[in-house]
């Protein structure tokens, strides 16, 4: 991938492959992700209490929380996979309820434990998703993305033969094929070995360097400390902490970050009340 060429060619530094009709509608002055009272309930039981949050363009936002805190629900709402019960949200300037197609054109999404089609090769998997995303030249987009992620040797191998780490990288490839403005990663390091975690962190840093906004659910505080520019902590479906990473590190070191997380998470019911 020719980074120098692409830095001048596209908003996020990669060659822009979004359909023109969609990119023209981008509203760069707005935050990349903005929610206002966004909530979700299942049969009256709240999974996500009304959430108000802004993630500025170009941030790597770490969304922390215990299992069942509502992190995945939040991502599914923002990626239009779920309809909210309350509130609104805008992603890349587009309303998730009234303009879901433009939201989807502007985002990439890597779910937790992505598998893909086992009997298809990496190229076949990625070409399908590139075409679904409306990429004009899928073959070139696939080659460039695989090169960018340094997994070109996997191109013609069947995904069913891959390790967890390899699948995760191919999964990430499908998420950035169309050069999204906002990338949603749901527990991207889940199940990865230390080498896989490091490789993923490097990729996130490269994407951040190219201006992509990254919204990342994670459990790993060490990853948050190294990769994120701002964090939010979700506990029992409520946002209980939100600040820039700079502000956090000014007050806490990495060990204390854990104390911060545990402290705000434990206080969550009182905060909620």
């Amino acid at each position, binding site marked *: 991938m020719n980074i120098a060429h692409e830095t001048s060619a596209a908003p996020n530094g990669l060659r822009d492959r979004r359909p023109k009709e*969609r990119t023209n509608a981008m509203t760069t002055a707005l935050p990349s992700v903005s929610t206002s009272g966004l909530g979700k309930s299942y049969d009256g039981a709240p999974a996500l209490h009304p959430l108000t949050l802004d993630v500025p363009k170009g941030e790597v936002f770490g969304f922390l929380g215990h299992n069942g805190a509502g992190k995945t629900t939040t991502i*599914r709402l923002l*990626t*239009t*996979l*779920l309809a909210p019960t309350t509130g609104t949200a805008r992603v890349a300037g587009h309303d998730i309820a009234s303009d879901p*197609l*433009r939201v*989807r*054109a502007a*985002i990439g*999404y890597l*779910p*937790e*434990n*992505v*598998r*893909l*089609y*086992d*009997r*298809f090769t990496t190229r*076949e998997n990625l070409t*399908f*998703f590139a*075409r*679904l*995303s*409306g990429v004009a030249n899928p073959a070139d987009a696939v080659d460039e993305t695989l090169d960018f992620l340094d997994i070109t040797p996997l191109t013609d191998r069947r995904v069913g033969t891959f390790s967890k780490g390899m699948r995760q990288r191919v999964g990430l490839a*499908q998420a950035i094929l169309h050069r999204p403005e906002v990338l949603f990663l749901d527990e991207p390091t889940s199940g990865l070995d230390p080498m896989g975690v490091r490789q993923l962190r490097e990729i996130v840093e490269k994407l951040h360097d190219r201006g992509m906004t990254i919204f990342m659910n994670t459990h790993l505080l060490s990853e948050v400390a190294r990769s994120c520019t701002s964090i939010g902590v979700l506990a029992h479906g409520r946002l209980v902490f939100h600040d820039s990473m700079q502000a956090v590190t000014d007050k806490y070191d990495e060990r204390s970050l854990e104390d911060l997380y545990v402290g705000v998470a434990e206080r969550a019911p009182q905060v909620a009340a």
Partner: protein
Amino acid sequence: MTASQLIARQSLAGLARDRSVLILTTFFAAMVLVTAWLGWSATNTVNAIYADAAQYLTASAQPVPPNPVSQSAPLAVLRNLGVYISLIGAFGAIVIGQLLIEIDRRAGTLPLIGARPFDRRDFTFGKMRALVTVTGAMMAIAGVISVATLFTIPSLVLGLSDLLHLALFLVAGWAYITIFGFMALGAAARMSATAGGLIAATVVWLVVTFVLPELTANVHPTAAINPVSTLAGTPDSGFFHLMSWVLGPFSLAEGFAWASGDLLSFLPDGLAPRGPVPPAVTLPVALILAGLFAVRSVAKLDLNAGGPDV
């Protein structure tokens, strides 16, 4: 290429790599071949006996009657085909309908597809398009084998009308198996359990194939897999006349058997279809209703589900 076409193409490629689909379609093609061979063999046997008899009669200066093969309807040779379509073809369509959802669910790709910028209806129509293509291909295989068989039987003269009737029979067969494919597609979309859609559609198929004919005309399950005895008349009893009238329109297997007998010209004289509505109406209506069920169900498919973490 539209999103619907992309979904259909990907689904077909996925099916082509699935062993159960390959086994089922191969089995279906093999049974159609067996049907064709049985018809070809039986007709040739009659021809051979007729040739011997004709030679004897000619030698003894007696009049030679016409060959019964040339007197009977040529398409009746294919009478077993309707049974294999009704049994293996319909079950194959059920497996395919279920797999069309299961392939994506198992791969965990539903959320990846759902987060793409295209209308959800394209996903639904893409899946239905894939199903219709596969069931159409199955009937095309049956058609090619049938036509090849008919043209290799001596003494059988096929007219344009016969070919038209064969084409109509294949269309009826396509409609019949697609009904069950749509049911399985819809059931698989509504039920998140892996085998849920398969079991639900199979139960409907079993009821339609074996239970309803028993209630409408006392056709036992063993008779229901016989192309001739399944076309029995309604027994002369008040219960069966009532059941035949009430359940006849829902007894799709009997409707298809009646249509097969009519189109392939082996329908017993005077046999009326079960119930007040003819199969020419019930089969298309059932196809439309099953299609609507599939549309509604796939539209409600939870795209968050699937993969190893569910």
